[in-house]
Each structure stands twice: as structure tokens, then as C-alpha cells.
């Protein structure tokens, strides 16, 4: 029979067992790390193992992985309220500004500028391009250290391109060229879509920003306070969006449905994240020899592509943990960790040294489809953030874009409405 004494002894023993690792951790620092997307464990885990091999005094332990950047963001905000923040978190680029502003107001996030300066004058310049480092900056301070980065690329079906009379080895580098090729595919294979540029159903405004930024436009003014896509570049972008439908036979279907249709050979060209390279390659199977190409850029001087991905943020408050966290963050952005992450996903490396032959050089020779993302590394622009109302603004914009693509609104009227509604939502944020 279980007596009260037994019960007390048992629970005390259990509590002791639970407390034991904490006692040991005082000798070696344990970092509590949080990241999103369960499938990312396949590179987060080996990177952490390599890190622990190089730093025996530090242990990395991962919290329960969250499904996406939004839920990660939400978990961090909750953690800030209950004082249960992890020591290091990998925040989505598009969520970083809001996270940094909220947490710095509560004094719960570490700015990395002095740590970077402490590494020596040339360290930052040798490892990172200024555009890449800028992705982790909020209000002029470096809160995040980029870890994964990606910008949209073209995926195409070389067989359909060839049937339309195009050259599969020379993918167009302008949008006029893409439209012409898409229209030719539609004429050659009437039941197929020539091009599908699914900003009507993509789960963020990333692809829409890409269409504006490649033409030299920006979503927001330099100070981030007013809408800047109402001009020429924005108009060119919405006109392109409508032409995908009218000239290239695009149907307005869901993002997953688009990927399925492309994989079965029913679409000539799609645009998506290079992080989906492995997924799309698997979907295609051996049906056709899938090819990728860099994102076409109309304005060769000011044009660029928005960068998705995540940056490491340090939230530890204890000095010893902060030191250990910086070592881990530095390692993650280093060439070896980047090699591991890039080879498994198709992301582009954030570290310049990672391109060397001993790291990723050979991999790119063997996997030309993965190279497209790396080729546009110097085209990286920030994934622009509208502030607290960002996700809401995306939803409104997506509806208007859908209406433009369906032909319910003219590109001019649609763009004007998009600017108006975006400004209204930015004001109420």
C-alpha cells in the first residue's frame, strides 16, 4: 500500500532527479534554443552537434519546435510576458523588426553591435556582405544574425520550354522574356499553364514584393513610414500580374495546387522559394528534368529580390549564457554551419567564406539547381515590413491582387486601392 511517506519520498526523489542536470549545468553552460519548422531539425541538429564538438563547455538543447515563424513569434511574445524566453531564437526576417522593438522596450533582447566590433575590425567584412548583415538590423542596431536566407527563384520544365521553341539552357532574364515564353508554352500545349506566379494564394507577400523590387521599386520609403509602391515599378508589377493570366494562361488556384500541377508537367514556369527545392524535386520525381534559374530582374541597377529566412536573436540575460550564446550564433553564421544548412535545403549561404571550394564549391558543381539562389546573393534586399499590421496588410493586398488578376479591377485602379488601404492600415497600427 502506498503511504503518504512513500509518496513524499518518491516525489522528492523525482524532483532531485530533475534538478540534477541543472546542478551539472553550472559547470557547463546549457543553451536553450528555439526554432521554427520541424523539418529544419535535420540541419539544426547536426549544426549543434558540430558546435558542441568545437565547444565542449557549451551544451545546446532545443525546445519543442514550432510549426512556423508566426507561431514562433507568438511563443516569444508569450515567453517575454512570463519570463520564459529561450536563450537563442531563430526569428523569421519579416517578424524580426516587431520582435526586436517589443523586446527591446522590455529590455529582453541583446543588441549584437558591440559583440561584432569585439571580433576585430575586419571580421564582419570578411564574413558577410553588407546587404546580408543589414537583414538583421532593426532601427540601425544589429539585433539578429542571419542564419538562413533565401530569395525567390524560377523553377521550369525544360521539356515544355523546348516544345514552345525556347532554349532550356537560356532562361529569360527579363519579365518580357518570361511572358513571351509563357505565352509560347500556352500556344504549344493549350491545356498547360505557361507561367504561374501565384501571388493570389502564396502564404505571405514575399512573391508580390519580389515583383515590385525586381523593377527597382520598394514597398516602403527609406524611413519605413510611407507606402512607396504606388509608382511606376508598382504599376509595372500589377500589369505583369494580369498578363500572366491573359497571355500565359495562368489559372488562379491555390499555392499547393500550383506546385502539384507543376510537378505533373502541367505548368511551364513557376516561382517559389529555393528552400522548397528538395520538396519540389521530390514532387516532380523523374517526370521531367527539373531546372531552376535566378529570378529575372528588369532594373539591373536598383532591382533586387526580398530575402526570406531567419536570424538568430540572443535573449539570455546571464553574462555567461550571453557569451556562450554569442559563440553559438557566430558558429551558426559561419562557413561550416552554412555548408550543412545549405546542402540540406537549398537556402543561400549567409557567409561569404562558405562559397570556398572546401565548403560549398563542390556541392554547387554537382547540384546546379541549388546554384540559382546563390547566384543572386548580391541581389538580396530586405523583406520589407509594414509594422504591427503587416499580416493584415498582406491579406488585404492579396485580395486586391486577386481581383486585378481576375480582371475585376484594372491594374491602375487596383494599385491605387492597394496603396490607399495599405496606408490606412499602417496608420491604425
Amino acid at each position: 500500500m502506498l503511504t503518504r511517506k512513500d509518496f513524499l519520498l518518491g516525489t522528492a526523489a523525482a524532483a532531485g532527479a530533475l534538478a540534477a542536470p541543472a546542478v551539472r549545468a553550472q559547470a557547463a553552460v546549457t543553451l536553450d534554443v528555439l526554432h521554427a519548422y520541424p523539418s529544419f531539425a535535420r540541419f539544426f541538429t547536426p549544426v549543434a552537434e558540430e558546435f558542441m564538438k568545437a565547444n565542449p563547455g557549451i551544451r545546446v538543447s532545443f525546445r519543442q519546435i514550432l510549426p512556423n515563424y508566426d507561431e514562433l513569434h507568438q511563443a516569444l511574445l508569450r515567453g517575454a510576458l512570463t519570463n520564459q524566453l529561450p536563450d537563442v531564437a531563430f526569428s523569421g526576417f519579416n517578424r524580426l523588426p516587431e520582435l526586436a522593438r517589443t523586446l527591446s522596450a522590455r529590455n529582453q533582447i541583446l543588441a549584437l553591435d558591440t559583440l561584432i566590433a569585439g571580433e576585430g575590425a575586419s571580421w564582419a567584412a570578411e564574413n558577410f556582405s553588407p546587404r546580408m548583415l543589414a537583414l538583421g538590423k532593426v532601427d540601425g542596431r544589429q539585433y539578429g544574425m542571419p542564419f538562413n536566407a533565401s530569395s525567390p527563384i524560377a523553377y521550369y520544365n525544360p521539356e515544355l520550354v523546348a516544345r514552345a521553341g525556347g532554349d532550356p539552357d537560356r532562361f529569360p532574364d527579363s519579365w518580357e522574356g518570361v511572358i513571351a515564353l509563357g505565352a509560347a508554352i500556352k500556344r504549344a500545349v493549350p491545356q498547360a499553364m505557361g507561367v504561374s506566379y501565384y501571388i493570389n494564394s502564396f502564404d505571405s507577400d514575399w512573391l508580390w514584393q519580389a515583383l515590385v523590387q525586381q523593377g527597382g521599386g520598394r514597398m516602403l520609403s527609406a524611413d519605413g513610414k510611407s507606402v512607396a509602391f504606388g509608382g511606376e515599378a508598382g504599376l509595372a508589377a500589377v500589369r505583369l500580374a494580369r498578363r500572366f493570366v491573359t497571355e500565359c494562361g495562368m489559372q488562379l488556384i491555390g499555392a499547393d495546387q500550383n506546385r502539384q500541377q507543376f510537378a505533373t508537367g502541367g505548368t511551364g514556369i513557376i516561382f517559389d522559394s529555393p528552400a522548397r527545392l528538395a520538396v519540389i524535386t521530390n514532387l516532380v520525381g523523374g517526370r521531367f528534368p527539373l531546372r531552376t534559374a535566378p529570378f529575372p530582374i528588369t532594373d539591373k541597377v536598383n532591382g533586387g529580390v526580398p530575402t526570406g529566412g531567419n536570424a538568430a536573436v540572443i535573449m539570455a540575460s546571464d553574462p555567461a549564457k550571453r557569451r556562450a550564446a554569442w559563440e553559438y550564433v557566430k558558429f551558426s553564421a559561419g562557413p561550416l554551419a552554412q555548408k550543412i544548412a545549405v546542402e540540406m535545403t537549398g537556402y543561400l549561404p549567409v557567409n561569404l567564406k562558405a562559397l570556398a571550394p572546401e565548403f560549398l564549391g563542390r556541392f554547387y558543381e554537382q547540384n546546379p539547381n541549388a546554384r540559382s539562389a546563390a547566384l543572386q546573393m548580391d541581389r538580396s534586399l530586405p523583406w520589407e515590413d509594414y509594422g504591427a499590421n503587416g499580416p493584415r496588410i498582406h491579406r488585404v493586398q492579396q485580395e486586391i491582387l486577386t481581383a486585378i488578376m481576375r480582371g475585376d479591377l484594372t491594374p491602375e485602379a487596383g494599385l491605387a486601392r492597394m496603396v490607399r488601404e495599405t496606408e490606412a492600415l499602417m496608420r491604425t497600427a
Partner: protein
Amino acid sequence: MAFAAVFLPRAARSASPDRRLALAGAAFAAPAALLLLTILLAPLVVLLLLSLTDYRLGAVAVRWVGLANYAEMFSDPVFRRAIRNTFLYVAFVLPAGVFGALAVAALVHARTRTRSVYEVIYFLPVTSTLVAMATVWQFLLHPTLGPVTPLLASLGFGRLDLLNDPDLALVTLAVIGVWQMLGFNMVLFLAGLSAIPRDLYEAAALDGAAGAIDRFLRVTWPMLGPTTMFVTITTTISAFKVFDTVVVLTRGGPLGATDTLLYVLYLEGFHYFRTGYAAAMTVIVLAFLCALSLLQARLIERRVHYA
């Protein structure tokens, strides 16, 4: 009694027997009351208070805004659209889900050897996980790859894109909703049918009720009153709470044609982090649900015959 003896203060034990009994009763009820208070009533009060603030998740400062959230909600076109879509959805799913299930149950009930086979077939959708089924639906309804569009085209409907046409998306989700709950409602009706005593049918036959329709209208339908009431209320509530199909299949699109109350609430609370506004929306949804259930219970209660 040992429990009460331990927890009651000494004074109570020496008080009059009546008082002691009352105190003991209160002591026994206390844990349940406490639980109700902490997990139901207290959060409800917090919800009501939150709905009067502009609280955002993670914010340091909170401002009291009175009824501003409610005012904004009723002038918000997205919220109004969500209300309209939700009621349209309920208006479709409720009759189809209840009468469809009744018809299926009546037919299945009449089988003897094949009854369990049909029961399993109709109950399968209830046991399947919708998020997993979503991939199947996406494929089935794919305008170029799936079989549904060509099938409808061969029946003379033209080439329809059921998930991506703003005029059809809500109806498509409603059909999937009926598919999901038909089996569950059928089982409830089957239980109701089995509980009807055979001698009632014999008595009706003696009194001259001839034919299946007569038997159904005179005996089956009145005797199923309590079951029908229960099924109607639960179907209304679950149709009102439509969420999973919207998230996995349409995300409220195209053009907001499938925005529903719970989905918009989820966006506001968990994507836009506007906790105060989402709390106000929750209060409204709660009020709708209570009102609907009470109304139905009162209306139907009057006509239900309890055997």
C-alpha cells in the same frame, strides 16, 4: 466522511447537525465549484475585460478603450462578411446535415445483414483527420488534375473550379462539412430509431396507419423528437464553429468568400496579435452561440414529445 472530517474546522463539527450537514455539503461541492470558477468563469471575466482594451500580445502598455472594439467590429467589412458567410454556411449545412443523416439512418436501419457495412462507410469521414484529408480534397477538386471537374463537365455543368471560384468556394466547403458530420448524426439517429418500441408500430397498424410514409409521420418522426433536437443543436454549433476546412483548404479566400467568424477571429488573435479586438469578437461569437442554442431549445422543446 473522512475527507470532510479532515477539512472541516473544529467549530463546525461541534455545531448543530443541520449546519454540519450543510457545511459538509458545501465542502464536497467546493472542489467542483472551485474548478468551475478557475477554468470557466474567471477566464470569461478576463475575456470580457480584455475586450474593452486595446491589448496586443506582448505589449507593455494597455489602454482602456471602452466599447471601441465592438464599434470597430460592426463597421469592419471583413467581420460583416464573416458573419454573412458563417450564417450562409450554417443555413446550408444544418438542413443537409440533419435531414440527410435522418434519411441515411432510416435507410440503414432497415438493412439487416449489410447494416454494419453501411454504418462503417458513413462513419469513416468522422474518424478521418481533416488536415490529412485536405490533401485528398485539394487533389480531388484540382481543376486540371482532379476527377471532380471533368465529372461535372461531363454532366453539363461546364468546367468549374470548386475551391477557387469565389461564387462556389463556400458551397464546396459546406458540402465537405456535411460529408464530415453526416456519419456522426446518422449514428445518433440510429440510436434513436432502435429505441422506438415495436409495439407502437403494431398499434399504429391496427389503427389503420398504412404504408411507410404514414408509419414514419405518425410514429417514427414524433418518437425521434428528442434525438432531432439534440442533433439540430449540436449540428448548428459545430457548423457555426467551421474552421479547419477553411484553414487547410482556402484560408478565407478567394476574395474573402470563405471568411468565417472563427477563422477571422483566429487571424485577429493569432496572426495580427490584436488580443483585445479578438476578445471582443469571441464575446460576440459566444453570445451568438448561446442565443442560437437557447432559441432552438425553446422552439423545439415545445414540439418535442418525450416518451
